């Protein structure tokens, strides 16, 4: 073992479980023996530091209880209550499960009509570029409007699988924008809360 390896072992902090090779090195190397002594001294100081408990501010418990009794937490406390019903009973009545099953049943029953309706809605949406175009022209974004409407019009005229592919491609972009907006909002809230 060399001095660098020995230093690395000291940084790993297992001073009580140093391998025999490391201890032998410390016996033969004065500098590493001093490092080991200092590391042990630091370890003792850290133990003492973290076992000492600073004084709690006076009235701390009172202030906690004021917040508890004021009802800061009472409104949502029931959410943490363990359920008195077995899981299979809860699952049967879980609104989300009921809704999903009802949707699935409706889809099986009227699935073709739904798909036709969704297709018609998509076709109607493909007329949106015209509205966007006229709106952007009105506020002076003519070139951008042309570019946008050409792009969207070609998508609208494309076969359904292509439209679907474009929608899949745009979805991550929208998700990224939503995420950025969320983080920006979170930062505003956190900053306000930290004041």
């Amino acid at each position, binding site marked *: 073992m060399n001095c660098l390896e020995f230093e690395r072992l000291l940084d790993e902090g297992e001073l009580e479980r140093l391998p025999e090779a490391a201890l032998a090195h410390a016996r033969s190397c004065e500098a590493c023996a001093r490092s080991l002594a200092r590391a042990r001294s630091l370890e003792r100081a850290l133990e003492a530091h*973290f076992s000492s408990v600073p004084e709690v501010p006076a009235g701390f418990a009172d202030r906690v209880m004021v917040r508890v009794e004021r009802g800061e*937490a009472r409104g*949502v406390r029931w959410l943490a209550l363990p359920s008195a019903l077995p899981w299979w009973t809860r699952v049967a009545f879980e609104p989300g499960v009921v809704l999903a099953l009802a949707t699935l049943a409706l889809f099986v029953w009227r699935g073709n009509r739904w798909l036709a309706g969704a297709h018609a809605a998509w076709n109607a949406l493909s007329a949106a570029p015209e509205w966007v175009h006229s709106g952007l022209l009105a506020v002076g974004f003519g070139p951008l409007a042309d570019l946008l409407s050409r792009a969207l019009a070609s998508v609208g005229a494309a076969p359904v699988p292509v439209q679907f592919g474009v929608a899949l491609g745009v979805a991550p972009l929208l998700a990224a924008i939503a995420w950025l907006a969320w983080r920006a909002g979170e930062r505003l809230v956190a900053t306000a809360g930290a004041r």
Partner: protein
Amino acid sequence: MTLPPGVRPEAAGTADERRLIAQAQAGDTAAFRALVERHQARAHALALRILRSASDAEEVAQDAFVRVWTALPGFRGESTFATWLYRIVARRAFDRAQVLKNRRSRERQDEQLPEPATPEKREDTLRAAKLQEMIARLSPAQRASVTLYYYEGRSVEEVAHVLGMPENTVKTHLLRARAALRAAWTHEMGDEA
């Protein structure tokens, strides 16, 4: 209900504590107050060690206790009450430390950490103060990792769980923190260390 000095709340996880928890779970605020009084010192100390700001530490510790009251009905005793509480405190303190780090780097302000329990010897006081300064110079993640390492019985796994980090990340934080502390300790103490 305050524990005698030197007695850790984990060690006092007795039938009495279980009774208090059961009563508090049923909505008994007096029992909850007893739990707060029993654990406030170490919960507050943990927040203080991570945040180094008395006002922020108090706020975080208070928030943690309010959160504990909210979540207490779901507490099933899989860990001790103290461990559960410290996890809540540590996670909140770490989140707050990250926010404060960004804010402080702009404002360059720092509050003084109150002195811990007075050591008997002057030399010890000096060493404790120097160690405190060294710990203060660590990054929030390193400080939180080191603090929790000593709070969680030197379990890297527990520290990683509390901070929501991979174990290897915690090990890296600990390694770097220890290297920085050893360098500073050697510089401060020289051969007397």
